[in-house]
């Protein structure tokens, strides 16, 4: 046992260089025993790289790591586990076709047998208030349940240091509270916790210390409970968060909706998907309708049905400006004025190896002649104008899509769709993984588009974002859509309840509620 006062973990001068970017630049970090320590930074600040260094998935170029006062070189995740360091990734390392017990077993070293592991899972789970059935195959679990399996797996290694990477992006507000209870219990038992996040309110509610990273460097170590949002923002991005001017929507509630969805039900397209049940919503010109919800509740399926990627909707269920588009394909919908910005940029919104100019051809076909031939110059010109107008940092229209940072690519894709002057713009996760500057620009553009008379539908897992830009808010849970509420009447608690399916409806049943309350 190390002498009292020895930090559990101490990093000194950690640096890591990748070919194009210096991910960590002489970063230092100190975590005491039993302390809950936040690592705050916007996307691209170097948080993930630093955690990978601690967890042994990546080797630093320079710097020293001390664990309980002893210098160590964490050579691999297995070594980290032996030392007592455990990590719960943002993107789970689970195997869908295996059971929870088998998944946990794979995360442990070989000493235990499978039945013993199943038993220990039940013990640990109940000790910390987590509900995990060891025999269920992971693909039948909701996202929140999968996270619990990950956490139990980490706990079974009796960690002295637990690292959690953005754990609440997949949880309802109520589930977040439950998680915090678990984490406080853990810390009280002596386990140190490193909590990676960019959500200021959560950090303030949970953590005693906070290290802030920006551009790979450490910009400060503070007690988050003593700081306000402005102070933390200043450390995180170098300035106060840009204020967004939110004017009242000029939408005419009596006008015919641009988009009208009625009784949209859709069976699962693949075994791991979500069934849609009787979805109904309207979007009018000049308003932004938001859809909140934890991932895995049918957003992907709804978006695919609206964009035309899934053309199976029943006739009459989706109407655009009065015409039935339920069975139309994506190109037809685009010609009718419906444009879509998908959640995945590389691979869906843009082809990674093609140039920005070529990528405009995915959704903008003005340069294609009636005979089907492409005129190269107008294509280049369009890409160049988008790059300029939306401040996309790229090597020109000929740059490959994958050479852009996440934020810049998102600006390009959003710009490409807005530039088409759509009647309806559907956007999924508009600012996920995007740096603060680009996020502000994108949100500003969406509001400007709304003011110009376009109808917008925004699906996002970031509640703060939806509160900021939406006029009305729906919640999607378990494949069902709630009625809408005006944003002025929305609170986090109410939205959280609705995320569990508990919204007022005629003949309401709460059967799905327990499952949705991840």
């Amino acid at each position: 046992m190390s002498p009292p006062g020895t930090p559990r973990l101490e990093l000194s001068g950690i640096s890591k260089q990748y070919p194009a970017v210096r991910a960590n630049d002489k970063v230092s970090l100190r975590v005491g025993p039993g302390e809950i320590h936040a690592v705050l930074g916007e996307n691209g600040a170097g948080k993930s790289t630093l955690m990978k260094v601690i967890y042994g998935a990546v080797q630093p170029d320079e710097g020293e790591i001390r664990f309980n006062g002893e210098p160590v070189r964490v050579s691999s995740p297995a070594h980290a586990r032996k030392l007592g360091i455990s990590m719960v990734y943002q993107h789970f390392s689970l195997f869908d076709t295996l059971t929870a017990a088998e998944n946990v077993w794979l995360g442990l070293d070989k000493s235990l047998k499978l039945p013993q592991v199943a038993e220990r899972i039940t013990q640990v789970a109940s000790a910390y208030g987590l509900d995990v059935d060891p025999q269920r195959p992971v693909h039948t679990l909701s996202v929140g349940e999968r996270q619990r399996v990950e956490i139990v797996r980490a706990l079974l290694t009796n960690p002295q240091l637990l690292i959690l990477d953005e754990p609440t992006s997949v949880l309802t507000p109520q589930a977040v509270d439950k998680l915090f209870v678990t984490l406080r219990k853990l810390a009280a038992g002596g386990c140190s916790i490193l909590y990676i996040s960019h959500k200021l309110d959560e950090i303030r509610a949970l953590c005693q210390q906070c290290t802030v990273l920006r551009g790979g460097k450490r910009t400060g170590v503070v007690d988050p409970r003593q700081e306000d949002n402005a102070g933390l923002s200043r450390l995180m991005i170098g300035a106060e968060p840009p204020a967004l001017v939110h004017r009242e929507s000029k939408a005419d509630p009596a006008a015919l909706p641009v988009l009208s969805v009625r009784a949209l039900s859709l069976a699962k397209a693949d075994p791991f998907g979500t069934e849609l049940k009787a979805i109904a919503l309207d979007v009018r010109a000049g308003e932004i309708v938001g859809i909140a919800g934890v991932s895995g509740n049918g957003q992907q399926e709804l978006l695919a049905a609206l964009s035309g990627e899934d053309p199976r909707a029943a006739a009459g269920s989706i109407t655009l400006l009065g015409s039935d588009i339920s069975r139309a394909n994506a190109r037809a919908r685009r010609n009718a004025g419906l444009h879509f910005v998908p959640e995945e940029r590389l691979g869906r919104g843009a082809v990674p190896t093609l140039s920005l100019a070529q990528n405009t051809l995915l959704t903008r076909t003005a340069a294609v002649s009636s005979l089907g031939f492409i005129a190269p110059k107008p294509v280049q010109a369009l890409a160049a104008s988008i790059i300029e107008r939306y401040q996309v940092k790229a090597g020109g229209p000929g740059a490959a899509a994958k050479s852009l940072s996440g934020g810049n690519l998102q600006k390009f894709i959003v710009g490409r769709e807005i530039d088409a002057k759509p009647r309806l713009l559907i956007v999924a996760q508009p600012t996920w993984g995007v740096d603060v500057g680009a996020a502000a620009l994108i949100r500003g553009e969406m509001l400007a588009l709304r003011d110009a008379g376009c109808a917008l539908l925004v699906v996002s897992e970031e509640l703060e974002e939806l509160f900021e830009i939406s006029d009305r808010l729906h919640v999607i849970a378990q494949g069902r859509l709630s009625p809408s509420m005006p944003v002025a009447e929305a609170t986090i608690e109410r939205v959280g309840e609705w995320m569990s399916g508990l919204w007022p409806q005629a003949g309401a049943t709460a059967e799905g509620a327990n499952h949705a309350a991840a």
Partner: protein
Amino acid sequence: MLRLEARPAPSQRMALLSPLIAIAVTALLAAVLFAALGKDPVRGLAVFFFEPLNGLRATSEVLLKATPLIVIALGLAVCYRANVWNIGAEGQYLLGAVAGGGMALWLTANGIVLPKVLSLTLVLLCGVLGGMFWASIVALLRDRFNASEILVSLMLVYVAQQVVNYLVFGPWKDPGGFNFPQTRTFDASTWLPPLIERTRLHIGFLLALLAAGLTWLFMFRSYRGFALQVGGLAPAAARYAGFSSRGALWLALGVSGGMAGLAGAMEAAGPLRQLTPHISTGLGFTAIIVVFVGRLHPLGIVAAGVLLSMMLIGGELAQSRLGLPNALSSVFQGLLLVVLLASDTLIHYRVRGARKVVAG
């Protein structure tokens, strides 16, 4: 210790150099092999790579053999760029030969002598349709039943070979042919006219070049071609854009089957002028190598087609001049592809000395 480090962007220079590096390394390995077999390596390489181009006659033979390779490979390039792995071009080639040859036989047997333009168009058109038909079986099974196009197209090669055997041993056997497994010789009106007099090189070579130009237009200037390639590079992006993956599947297989069938009909109506079991020489498989060495690009395919044709003829020459088995050329072809795939790594990765890790 060497290690590979990912490049920030793929190296254009390497993309062009890689096939040349592969050819050089293969030639080196070939020289080693010749030496191991007790033959003079320099003479071996000369026979394989230079003799085939020695003189007008020899060059015409190279271009003759390159013609079907180029045509088949162009179709395969369209297919592979769409990520549809048609491995059964050999079978589609055979069915094209059967269909085109069948039309030629019918014209011959019924004494119908048409103007060359007409009879050739008929024969070649039948070839295209025959190949497309064979490939459409693959498309249907993939479209309706989700069956792997790799395995189905391959199985159909074996079936196609049996079809050819059945026809030339059975109903299409030349009654005046002394019971040899071969059909009648086609009427002269169905023969492809020669390109260069007193050689076997026929206008099919020009058709191949024309096909290369059309393929380039399709791939790089047409929206359909763009859609096909997006489907191959990023299927989710293709769905997002509204490109039909079913449409892409049928188009890719239709084009590659049709081109392979065209090549088959050209071989039947060109140098062979009849159908025999020997029409199946593995050209459809050599064409796969041509596609990769040619970087799936029409210009590269023309060059690669000539190169592989040289190697095929080199194999025949090696057999007669050096007493080495003809199969040697297959060895070199396979080797070339393997080495090319390895050297292609350099396009995306750099070779570096191991980095020292500072103890933490």
